[in-house]
């Protein structure tokens, strides 16, 4: 873990660069400004959390990074190249509701991206079962999504996001639908998986505690139009523990985010 950290420090290079991004959409002839003046850089191997009120465009921004939605202005570079269409070689996506295909077993869900690539069945299943092992579901490959709990579904979804070994994992409020306990466990699990795979993670949430607990850096967004109003380095040591949530540093960081969200900086109409 420590070694991984120092390695990251040595080979520091930008994995995701968002440059001058803005987005305007039109609805019934009325143009609305959804995102404005977004600029951010995520270094390789870092865990970045975007937090903000609902409607601030944080999920839209993530979908743009995934190449699933096109912004009206600006550029997104992932691994140095523009992100114009979805590219599973560079980016894996984990959605809010896991979005597993109910007609496929857990292992076939994980293997789905490999099937699209035309890999042979045995290689697909080998790689998928290795991923299920990684997320702690090695025993549940044959089960169908309807037979899995919410937390297990989200683990399968993470395994699916990692199966092609992309350098970047984008996560859109992946734990929002889970109960508090499962959410805590999943946060811990995610950090363990992240430390084992050294992915670059961008994680969207509206939970302040989740943001501070997970992140190297927290980006705070405000709504109407969506813009980044604060960047916070979380200096808490890793591995993060549950006990850290009771420390003064943790509380201060969370308060700072909360104040930003509640009443954005002067000059920013909210």
């Amino acid at each position: 873990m420590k070694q991984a950290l120092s390695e990251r420090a040595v080979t520091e290079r930008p994995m995701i660069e968002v440059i001058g991004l803005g987005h305007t959409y039109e609805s019934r002839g009325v143009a609305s400004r959804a995102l404005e003046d977004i600029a951010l850089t995520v270094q390789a191997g870092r865990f970045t959390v975007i937090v903000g009120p609902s409607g601030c465009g944080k999920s839209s921004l993530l979908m743009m990074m995934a190449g699933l939605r096109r912004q009206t202005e600006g550029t997104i570079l992932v691994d140095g190249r523009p992100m114009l269409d979805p590219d599973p070689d560079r980016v894996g996506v984990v959605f809010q509701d896991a979005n597993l295909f109910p007609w496929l077993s857990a292992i076939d869900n994980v293997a789905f991206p490999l099937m699209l690539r035309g890999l042979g069945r045995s290689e697909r299943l080998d790689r998928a079962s290795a991923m299920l092992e990684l997320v702690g579901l090695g025993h549940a490959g044959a089960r169908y999504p309807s037979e899995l709990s919410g937390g297990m579904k989200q683990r399968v979804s993470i395994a699916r996001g990692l199966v092609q070994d992309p350098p970047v994992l984008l996560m859109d409020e992946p734990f929002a639908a889970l109960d508090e306990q499962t959410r805590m466990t999943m946060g811990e699990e995610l950090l363990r998986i992240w430390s084992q795979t050294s992915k670059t993670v961008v994680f969207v949430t509206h939970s302040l505690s989740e943001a501070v607990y997970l992140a190297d850096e927290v980006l705070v967004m405000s709504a109407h139009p969506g813009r980044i109003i604060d960047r916070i380095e979380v200096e808490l040591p890793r591995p993060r523990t549950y006990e850290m949530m009771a420390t003064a540093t943790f509380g201060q960081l969370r308060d700072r985010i909360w104040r930003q969200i509640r009443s954005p900086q002067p000059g920013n109409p909210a």
Partner: protein
Amino acid sequence: MSRASMLAARLLLLALALGLWEALPRLGWVDDEILPPFSAVFVTALQLLQRPAIHGDLVTTGLQLGAALIISVPTGVLLGILLAENKRLAQVCEPLLYFLFSVPKSIFLPLFILTLGISFWQKVAFGCFSTILIVLMSATAAVRSVREEHVLTARSYGATRAQITRHVYLPSMLPVLLEALRLAVIFSTTAVVLAEMYASRSGIGQQIASWGESFMMRQLFAGVLIVSVTAIVINEFIRWIENRCSHWRS
């Protein structure tokens, strides 16, 4: 209730019904000229099934039914998908389709006879006419049952349009389409048999009608039994396939 005792209870109910059917005419409570006992009907059915003429009738009805399904199901599915994919078209057509759906199809039967004569294809055409709307509406529902999130997920893994059709649309729609097929069998059987009973030279429906007219109650009941059992077997077979993919409609 366990599965075994549930099955036992159902078999008991069936046995009771058949026993009542057997007992009523035998005990003289019902005239056996009107309701022959079950055992007599069953024996008659077995005898009828040995007769080449009846084979011919069943084959005719089966072919008409098969032709009606082969034409109406794919056409209905394609039109339904077209409608689901074109919002404008759907907005224009859907109310009219619902109106047409609520009209009993049987009142159009004389028109089919006038335009196509009393023929094989008249039965097929009437079968198609009676079936296609339900298939079309089910197919529209099937397309709309495809979840946008599943399409988005597949896209995020770089799926092409063809891959999305094959690996997301098709499996999402399959359970609804199987149900549509089952309904199509029920609707077109009703239509084909009705058309045969109304005016025909062959077919099991025509036989049943003529047994009824000549007061041949054993044959009439035997015909009813044969058609009922066949319809139930086909229906249950499709339902069995439906249930096999039940876990995908969570």
